[in-house]
């Protein structure tokens, strides 16, 4: 008797038992279920939610791998153990085993905690509410480790994941019903609950915080600095990274957000597979460019002088905003979340544009934390239903007008 038959027998055995959703979640990962159509169309398309989510995960994997190497690279670089690489994307100094070891050691636990805790909560709710485990968390669980600083304590992450999944999603009714993007809810929780671990110039490089504590304790060591590009700009410091470093991703930042080129490729992949909304991605980039140009215009019109604390971020070349910070990652992977984004095609243009626009606005004007994409997306998540409402009203008005013409 093959595995297939054994699992089928188990499925029948567990049917109508409390454990059924948990078992089915695992079963359906191995086998596409034997369900047949009961009403309506007798044949169905090949895509299901698992395939859709899996496609997003495939797009995320390169970012994860890059993030692991980068975690090690930034650590060794800040510790002064290696030189900065200069030979382009495939520099051997970056893709070294040493770097990967640090990455595996630091990043894999984040992934495991994120999935372990999140899926446990999901299954728990599925069992209590007697529905199947929905696939939404597959993507969320992969996003979360990629948008936190590498040294985030694991217990903190676990608390945040529980908060995000329960308050951000399950209280609304689970996957498909939530208002806010769960991954960003988790990120926002961390940001507001443990701000010292989520911002500043130490948290972005593995070991920097530890080293700072040792120095404070009296140890004779060189401080490790791990400022993000945005952090440096916000304080008006000289940039030590070239544009190509930023584009390729050899800069400090949250685990998976640094490599603009990989995110660009992932975005193109999602558009090609028709899984991600190209409307949101394109309009968000447009929105960011427009805001960037406005700020550049303000600088060149000399409405602001060099002494201003906003000067260096405002004067940043407008298109550089696309490749620094978490903007690209947020736009490609978070803004396009179909549940929390606008659901109408017209609405998506507006929604995406405003995300880009507001991201850069917050980024420049937020004195405490020079990053805006998280707050911009969360804000627009809240307004997405409003945008949709007006887009749909347009359709309704057209229908009303037709009726009036007819009866007039």
């Amino acid at each position, binding site marked *: 008797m093959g595995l297939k038959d054994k699992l089928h027998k188990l499925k029948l055995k567990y049917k109508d038992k409390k454990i059924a959703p948990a078992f089915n979640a695992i079963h359906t990962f191995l086998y*596409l279920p034997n369900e047949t159509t009961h009403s*309506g169309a007798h044949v*169905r398309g090949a*895509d*299901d*939610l698992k395939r859709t989510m899996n496609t997003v995960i495939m797009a995320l994997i390169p970012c994860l791998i890059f993030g692991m190497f980068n975690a090690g690279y930034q650590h060794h670089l800040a510790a002064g153990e290696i030189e900065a690489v200069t030979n382009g994307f495939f520099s051997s100094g970056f893709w070294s085993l040493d770097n990967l070891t640090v990455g595996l050691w630091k990043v894999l636990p984040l992934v495991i905690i994120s999935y372990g805790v999140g899926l446990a909560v999901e299954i728990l709710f599925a069992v209590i509410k007697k529905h199947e485990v929905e696939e939404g968390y597959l993507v969320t669980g992969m996003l979360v480790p990629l948008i936190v600083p590498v040294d985030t304590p694991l217990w903190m992450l676990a608390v945040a994941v529980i908060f995000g999944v329960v308050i951000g999603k399950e209280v609304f009714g689970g996957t498909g019903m939530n208002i806010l993007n769960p991954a960003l809810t988790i990120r926002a929780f961390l940001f507001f609950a443990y701000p010292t671990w989520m911002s500043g110039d130490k948290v972005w490089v593995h070991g920097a915080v530890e080293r700072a504590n040792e120095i404070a304790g009296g140890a004779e060591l060189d401080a490790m600095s791990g400022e993000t590009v945005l952090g440096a700009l916000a304080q008006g410091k000289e940039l030590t990274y070239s544009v190509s470093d930023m584009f390729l991703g050899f800069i400090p930042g949250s685990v998976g957000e640094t490599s603009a080129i990989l995110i660009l490729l992932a975005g193109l992949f999602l558009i090609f597979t028709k899984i991600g909304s190209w409307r949101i991605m394109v309009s968000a980039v447009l929105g960011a460019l427009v805001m960037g140009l406005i700020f550049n215009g303000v600088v060149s019109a000399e409405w602001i002088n060099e002494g201003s604390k906003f000067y260096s971020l405002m004067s940043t070349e407008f298109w550089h905003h696309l490749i620094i910070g978490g903007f690209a990652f947020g736009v490609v992977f978070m803004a396009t979340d179909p549940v929390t984004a606008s*659901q109408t095609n017209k609405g998506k243009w507006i929604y995406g544009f405003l995300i880009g626009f507001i991201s850069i606005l917050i980024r420049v004007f937020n004195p405490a934390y020079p990053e805006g994409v998280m707050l911009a997306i969360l804000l627009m998540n809240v307004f997405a239903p409003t945008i949709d409402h007006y887009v749909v009203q347009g359709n309704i008005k057209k*229908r009303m007008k037709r009726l009036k013409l*007819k009866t007039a």
Partner: protein
Amino acid sequence: MSKDIRIRKGLDIKLVGEAEKVTVDAIRSNVYAIRPDDFHGIVPKVVAKQGTEVKAGEPLFYSKSNEKMLFPSPVSGEVIEIVRGAKRKILAFKILGDKEQKYADFGVKDVNSMSGDDIKSHLLASGCWPFIKQRPYDVIANPDVAPKAIFISGYTTAPLAADSDYVLEGKEKELQTAVTALSKLTEGKVHISVGKKGNSPLSGLENSTIHNVSGPHPAGNVSVQIAKIDPINKGEAVWVVNPQDLVVIGELLLTGKFNAERTIALAGSSVKTPKYFKTKIGAEVSSVVYASGVHDEGNIRVISGDVLTGENVKPDGYLGYYHNSITVIPEGDDYELFGWNKPIFNKISPSRALTFSWLFPNKKYELTTNTNGEHRAFVVTGNYENVFPLDIYPLQLLKACVVNDLDAMEQLGMYEVAPEDFALTEFICVSKQPHQQIIREGLDLMLKEIG
């Protein structure tokens, strides 16, 4: 006058087993069945009790809400059984067909000299009225409400459906008579749409407006054509008739006989030699299915109608009242190892998420009844719109139906749709939601609450 209608949004589902254009006479069915469920929303009141001998065209039952609306027997014979289900609901009238068919005589009529009211009462009395359906609500037309127009779609786009151009060949006279009769029932026009490339017998008819339609499925759906020609507003009604049923109506007027004969397509990948059969409404499907032979007999689904909107009638079932085809496809009652993430070449997908049907636009597929995934909440957005040519927000309308929001349903265009319009969105739905059922229940609720 002819106008062109071109549809861009949609999806042609290309399946193996298209019926070859050869028509043979089906072996005579012993028993014929009429299922009141085919007439959505009708509560039957029995006229022909068990044991009654009926002629073809004599009523089996009438509608509880309108006793003038009669539902005829397709053949002459003895009513051998009235099958009842839970709460004694009538599931089917079974008639043992006579070898020599006897027809009730309704009299030869000259359509041109009849008034609209004459035609209406003649159609009601002869049992031809149920062929006329109405929008909104996709139910049998209410004879007391005058329609603003009548629509006939002679363009076939549904997968493996019977080709109207082929099955109507040589029926011009009946079609013309029926169209002339219908044109007297409305103050508006009778709109007939035909395929732009086809050679439809409908395209030469008088007393009507002809429209040339092109584009992928659902261009052949009458709702799509109505929306392009003369959209339905609140408070209006339009009537809709299938072209095959026009033939029955026309023959009734010309000869006085109710002849339920029709040419149906037997199609689907499980059929060995798919072709056309001449049979009658309510015939046993086995009388055609096994004549052509089927592959893997234990594992088939027999559908009365097409794969998108038909009904699962099982091999011992009967041809539905409105159906022009029988489709037989393999059941998909099996597991598939890593079926959710491995690359897929043998199924149709609107995406490119490791599904490769976009590489082979002309390939014909052998789809099973597997759902390819489990039921989920609505998650993905924007994909229904690609296959939904009406100027309606499909996702929003579905959600309005799910939560029984009558105001929203009305505003979002519920009067303009029928369940069949959501067959394609249902086909591509990532969350495997039962769209047609949701829309049907929504329409029923509206009919009950608003009327």
